[in-house]
């Protein structure tokens, strides 16, 4: 899986969907010692939009943010912000907010002084009274009232995340870049901060560009998802678009929601380990891959007769996920097939370990990628 991606010459660009573009990067490339971190990336974001940038580690997503923030200079390409070419502008003159993964708070300053830092030391002089007032309003908004005079080493991880956010937002940027902002938090807190991040953004009306390696985070938070792989954008669209119609096997793989099978597509028929299935609507891709979502697979006893795809697999184990149960099956050639059962659809079946079952699905719900796409 993914072996064919380097041949993928995708022309996908992250196009904006709402309002006017607040920023645009145009054909940006960046290499480190001969390794291409970004390969002619073009991306736009609209005013008041939440864009999630999804990609595996090493896909260049952090580099992309650093180029936009001005910490790195692209080898080629332009960065345009609010209609102005800022490619050569130093970071401190850009007015683009950046929230770091490790928060990067000033360790020797209090919560309040961290928040006030930009106003007190920025290029634009802000009157002391206004600094005070804006600081307090921002601290109240992110829910840190009462902690103003604490040192940033004396507060919890979630509170530090809020300080980092407040410190950036108090500068009233039109664009905020977030580099895996929830990565340093524990799972419980991550869920809560996810909602809060959205709510804060909506209240402020700024554009967020949120980098993440987690597909759940990207799907949950973005108005629009941009998928990055090996330094290039391979798909952009609403969460629903990306989730239900991944444009390539690579995207389907990142989403972590699909069982992928190798096989061959000939004359509108896909031949894989599950037999030969009619696949009239294939998506063009550099390799033949058959994708079926975890929750679309049905499990039948071995004795059942099915007309569509049928895959014999051994039940191994299951994982309880709260709202659903994930069942793991293994095919004869060692491939693991995941079957998700939503508990709202009824109590889960009890399967016997090491016993063979027949997996099947409605072929119309599968997504087929192939070289001879229609």
């Amino acid at each position: 899986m993914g072996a064919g991606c380097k041949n993928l010459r995708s022309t996908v660009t992250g196009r904006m969907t709402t309002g006017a573009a607040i920023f645009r990067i145009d054909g940006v490339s960046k290499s480190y010692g001969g390794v291409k971190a970004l390969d002619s990336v073009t991306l736009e974001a609209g005013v008041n939009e939440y864009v999630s940038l999804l990609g595996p580690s090493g896909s260049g997503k952090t580099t992309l943010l650093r180029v936009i923030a001005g910490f790195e200079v692209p080898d080629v390409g332009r960065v345009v912000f609010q209609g102005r070419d800022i490619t050569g502008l130093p970071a401190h003159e850009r007015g683009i907010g950046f929230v770091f993964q490790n928060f990067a708070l000033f360790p020797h300053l209090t919560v309040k002084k961290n928040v006030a830092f930009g106003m007190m030391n920025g290029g634009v002089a802000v009157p002391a009274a206004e600094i005070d007032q804006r600081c307090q309003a921002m601290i109240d908004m992110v829910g840190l009232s009462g902690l103003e005079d604490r040192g940033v080493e004396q507060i919890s991880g979630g509170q530090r995340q809020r300080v980092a956010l407040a410190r950036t937002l108090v500068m009233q940027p039109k664009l905020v870049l977030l580099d895996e902002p929830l990565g340093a938090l524990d799972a419980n807190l991550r869920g809560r901060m996810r909602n809060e991040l959205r709510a804060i953004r909506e209240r402020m009306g700024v554009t967020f560009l949120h980098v993440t390696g987690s597909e759940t985070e990207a799907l949950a938070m973005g108005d629009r998802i941009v998928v990055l792989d090996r330094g290039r954008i391979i798909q952009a669209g609403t969460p629903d678009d990306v989730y239900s119609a991944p444009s390539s096997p690579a995207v389907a793989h990142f989403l972590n929601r699909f069982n992928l099978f190798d096989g061959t597509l000939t004359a509108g028929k896909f031949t894989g380990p599950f037999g030969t299935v009619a696949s009239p609507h294939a998506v063009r891709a550099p390799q033949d891959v058959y994708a079926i979502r975890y929750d679309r697979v049905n499990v039948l006893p071995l004795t059942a007769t099915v007309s569509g795809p049928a895959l014999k697999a051994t039940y191994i184990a299951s994982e309880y996920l709260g709202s659903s149960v994930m069942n793991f099956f293994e095919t004869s050639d060692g491939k693991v097939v995941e079957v998700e059962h939503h508990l709202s659809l009824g109590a889960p079946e009890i399967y016997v370990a090491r016993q063979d079952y027949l997996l099947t699905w409605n072929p119309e719900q599968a997504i087929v990628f192939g070289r001879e796409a229609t």
Partner: protein
Amino acid sequence: MTDATVARKRRLGPTWLILPGIVWMALFMIVPIAMIVYVSFWTQTTFNISPTPTLASWKQFFASDTYIGALWTTIRIWLIVLAATFAIGYPTALFVGLFVKSKTLSTVLLVICVIPFWTSFLIRVLAWRPMLGKEGVINIILLKLNVISHPIEVLLFTELSVIIGMTQIYCVFMVGPIAFMLGRIDRNIIEAARDLGAGFGRIFWKIIFPLSLPGVVVGAIFVSVMVLGEFATSGALSGRKVNLLGNIIVTQVGSLKWAMASVSGVILTVVMGMVIAAFLRIVDLKQEL
């Protein structure tokens, strides 16, 4: 064994580990200092010394221009050398600890700073003589370049030569701790400050310098302790014109004037104690290290 003794044994368990340290400190620090203080009150005659308590040596120290002058010279040279090592050391540390991105290169650069220490202390001091002398390297070069027409004579056997020598020798003790503190600063913090609109000057004064302050204090303590107790550099490079308290002690011990040497020793120890206490008030090292 009762529960109480078991509990006490457990509690006292690791405490005895500190014993060698206590013995060492008592033998080589507390006892000698107490001895110096005691001897400073002994009665000294020309060829004899007796433990009869007297304040004579103390009165003599504060009445004599030579001794008081030496005290002020010591303090003046200490302040100048401290300022010079900081002025040269901080930018060096900034380069090694912050601007050099590769850890390997910054380690190599720090080792280079230490290379002069591979030769003996006296060689390092004496090496300044052929550099600074009337017919030394510096004068020859300046004459050849026609920058000067007569050799500069104040370079050697003056206070200046002592300051130059000490600055060179002790600078590395300033560079090391500062570079260490600078190296620990998270690069993201500096980028965050840039992103919030701060230019380099602001970032330096508001972020980098405060975070490196513990290194400055440790470096300053190193340099101060060593410069205040100095006698060899001033002896070798001043032509006996610059007398520090250290030189006074050496001379007094040489002529067996133990009481007077002890008085100077006590005063020097008190000055060092005050200097260290003052530096430690600047930052809370307990918190920083």
